[in-house]
């Protein structure tokens, strides 16, 4: 378990997430892509914290911030999906021709 290996795995997760976020039509699937990207970033962060910074506690702190971002992304994402679905009956991105209400 070397730092390089960890970072490559993190890059793979990020790339798969990026693919999903760009290619998926469904809002929820798109959010899954975003989640995977944050997941990869989190892994890279902790890998650097554990193997390269000597366990500086602020690294873990940053990871907590990442997780907060993840939670916020989910909560607001679902709220927006619900709202868009309520107002426009749209569940895939193609149904949103304009972003103005």
């Amino acid at each position, binding site marked *: *378990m070397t*730092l*390089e*290996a960890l*970072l*490559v*795995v*993190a*890059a793979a*997760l*990020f*790339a798969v*997430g*990026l693919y*999903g976020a*760009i*290619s*998926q*039509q*469904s809002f*929820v*699937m798109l959010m*899954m*892509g975003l989640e*995977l990207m944050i*997941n990869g970033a*989190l*892994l890279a962060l*902790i890998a650097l*914290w*554990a*193997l*390269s*910074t*000597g*366990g500086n*506690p602020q690294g*873990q*702190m940053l990871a*907590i911030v990442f997780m*907060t971002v993840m*939670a*916020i992304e*989910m*909560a*607001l994402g*679902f*709220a927006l999906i*619900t*709202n868009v*679905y*309520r*107002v*426009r*009956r749209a*569940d895939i991105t*193609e*149904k*949103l*021709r304009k972003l103005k209400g």
Partner: protein
Amino acid sequence: MNRSLVVDVLFWCFAAGSVVTGFLVFRTDSMVRAAFWLLASFVGVGAILVLLAAEFLGVVLILMMAGEMLIMAVVMVMFMMNPAGLNPMFMVHQHRFAVAAGVVSFAGLSVVALTVDFPDQPVDPSVDATAELGFELLGDSMLVFQTAGVALLATMVGAIALASRNGRFGTADEGSHEPPLEIEELESP
């Protein structure tokens, strides 16, 4: 058995598992399976974090994702047609561009990971990382911690306001209509 060998084997299992399940998220017809594949991917990463001595973070990541993915699965089932994947389905757009973006980002990030020379300072095994995190949270980084808390509170308020039916200007779905689906037009750039 050699401890570092066990750790290595476990790491590669979890790593392969989390990448493969992460990929399967976008390859399954069933929405519920997609959510649970993503959960499996997170569990793999959480396990790697535990191996990396970030025990608390790893377990909390898994804890957090359980509820999140259940909600995701239910939302998928409720909003989407064909949630069980009884019909084969492939709902994508700009597919080639997405694949290219994925490959390029992977290649770029891997090159950075393999070429940059990071300092080699592993965590001291004798240090209790969980306790350190606790002191950090309620010590120097108290402000960051509190900010995160307030941000979450604001998110809760905002999310409820967005998702709720009754707003300041009457019900949210008043006069709403289903927009036409014109995929062909969009797909020809």
